[in-house]
């Protein structure tokens, strides 16, 4: 827990080598591995995807002198992402993977919300958490009612499957999705790492849903993915707006590398599968190598001390465990919160303070709400609702 990121130099970039066989290992077991191993794989895939996304944006907008170092680090990050993402097995269906994505959003965001030093940002995380919590419930209903399968085989009892803030009211106008950003000159390094982590996770979730949504045949599945992908885009808008736009691009890059060190280190600390733990440990060293390369650039080009931005040692790690009680408390206390501009308000004030969101939502839902349709009357039951004979074929049902 006391990794000194200034002292530990990690693996030099030119020693970070792969082969195709190394990248493509036998995946984890959907049935036997702990759900949190899958959670970590999905999160780290998202963080690596965000590293690439961020660095590509920088390459397109920054001074040409950064193009080569960005390309070199990106090449390794892309291979790291491949090795991590390819740990998901082929028998994990797209819908099952979706359930796991939502579990990531719930459990990782819950951990972040509890450790976040800035009370406003903690509130933002709790706000988003309740929405992803609802998505798990909606997708679980889809899995039960269309596929005839039980989402708990994926979440393994760690996360509740019940309504959160209803997805149909999560649709907001863009002006109500932006938040106040932290002040990069004053914010705790953990605040910056949190924002990068959650933004990465949500962005990958959005991209995943946009890729797999059309793979479903059922119209309600296609509609549900369309609806929830739209919310994930809102979440990316929300979370990325937490990051201070006054940070220099190089500062953002350095912070992202520190975020990757932090997250791989968190994964390694909690990992129960020794084969996967070795990968997390290897990539802690790779990311330290990237971080030090960027720290050198930061010193040379910006003439600033990385210690202005980075913590000496890694802050408190992500807790890879069930946050059931915290989530339930948040649900009880905050499910009726809505957003108006960058602030949070009670539902009864929404009409007066966030009329654009109401108008937008009414338009989007005017031909029906997929998330409401799929989960109408749905109560998750161990083994699916068919255990309770909830089918048109049950005797006495409206057949």
């Amino acid at each position, binding site marked *: 827990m006391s990794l000194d990121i200034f002292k530990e130099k990690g693996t030099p970039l030119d020693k970070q080598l792969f082969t195709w066989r190394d990248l493509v290992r036998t995946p984890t077991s959907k049935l036997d591995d702990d759900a949190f191993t899958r959670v970590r794989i999905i999160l780290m895939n998202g963080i690596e995807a965000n590293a690439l996304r961020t660095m590509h944006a920088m390459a397109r907008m920054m001074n040409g002198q950064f193009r080569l170092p960005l390309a070199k680090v990106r090449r390794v990050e892309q291979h790291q992402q491949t090795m991590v993402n390819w740990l998901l097995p082929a028998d994990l269906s797209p819908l099952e993977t979706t359930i796991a994505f939502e579990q990531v959003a719930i459990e990782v965001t819950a951990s972040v919300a509890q450790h976040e030093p800035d009370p406003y940002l903690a509130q933002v995380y709790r706000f988003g958490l309740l929405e992803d919590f609802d998505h798990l419930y909606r997708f679980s209903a889809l899995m039960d009612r*269309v596929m005839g399968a039980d989402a708990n085989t994926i979440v393994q009892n760690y996360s509740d499957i019940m309504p959160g803030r209803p997805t149909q009211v999560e649709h907001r106008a863009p002006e109500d999705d932006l938040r106040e950003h932290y002040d990069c000159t004053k914010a705790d390094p953990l605040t910056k790492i949190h924002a990068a982590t959650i933004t990465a996770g949500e962005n990958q979730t959005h991209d995943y849903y946009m890729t797999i949504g059309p793979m479903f045949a059922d119209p309600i599945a296609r509609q549900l993915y369309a609806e929830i992908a739209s919310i994930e885009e809102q979440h990316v808008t929300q979370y990325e707006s937490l990051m201070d736009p006054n940070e220099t691009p190089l500062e953002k890059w350095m912070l992202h590398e520190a975020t990757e060190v932090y997250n791989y280190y968190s994964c390694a600390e909690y990992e129960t599968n020794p084969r996967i733990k070795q990968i997390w440990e290897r990539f802690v060293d790779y990311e330290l190598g990237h971080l030090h390369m960027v720290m050198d650039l930061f010193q040379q080009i910006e003439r600033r001390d990385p210690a202005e931005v980075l913590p000496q040692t890694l802050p408190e790690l992500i807790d890879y465990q069930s946050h059931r009680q915290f989530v339930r408390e948040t649900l009880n206390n905050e499910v009726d919160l809505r957003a108006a501009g960058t602030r949070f308000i009670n539902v009864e004030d929404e009409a007066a303070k966030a009329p654009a969101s109401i108008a937008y939502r009414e338009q989007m839902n005017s031909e029906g709400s997929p998330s409401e349709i799929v989960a109408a009357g749905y109560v998750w039951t161990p083994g699916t609702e068919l255990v309770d004979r909830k089918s048109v074929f049950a005797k006495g049902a409206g057949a």
Partner: protein
Amino acid sequence: MKSTGAQRVMGNRTGMQTSPELADEIIEGSTAATPSSGGGVEGIAESRVDYITEGFPLGSMPLVPVSEEAVADEDEATMAVLLDKLSERLAFERMGVRLYEALLNKCETLGEMSPGPTLEEIRRIGTEELDHFLMLNETITDLGGDPTVESPSADIAAVTSMGIMQVLTDPRSSVPQCLQALLTAELTDNAGWELLIEMASNLGYDDMRQQFETALTHEEEHLQNVRDWLSDCVMDKIQTEES
């Protein structure tokens, strides 16, 4: 700028004869090219060998021990095999309920067609699938197992049958196309019940065997129904085309 939204009907474009000139060009290009490496498909097989020999299983049965009474006469390994296959059948029957719900949905929307299943016939099959699922829940519970487990065989069955669900829930699929997919399901289901009967019989679970034989009787009817409806639909189409 606004188009009419009308689509020019060209029919199926997947074959070479869609565009004979382009077909000649693509063949010309392909035959002129040289592969970058020699050999054939054997390299693919060798790549698989590398992973197969690592020996990682897809998954296992839970380590939670079944009740002492239930395993009095059987060792745990035998029980695990039985529970694995029961879990498979349970998952399949559960999916079967949703498959027939989708078929009912389609036939209700399109209206009953002759030839083809009546709504009442679909409801009867769906009800029997639900009954089989619930019976298997009880059977697994009675053996001290956990009916909520997705066993390795259940997982394989889910992977195998993903396409069936895709066909049934696709609003564009026709009733005969759905019946074709259901034929795959019913053939598998029949064989699955036959295997369970054999296992129950060998292990001396007479009550269980009898229950499974009743289920198989239903499933044999389902299979015959689906075969007949499919055959009738296809033959009817031939006759319609001829006339």
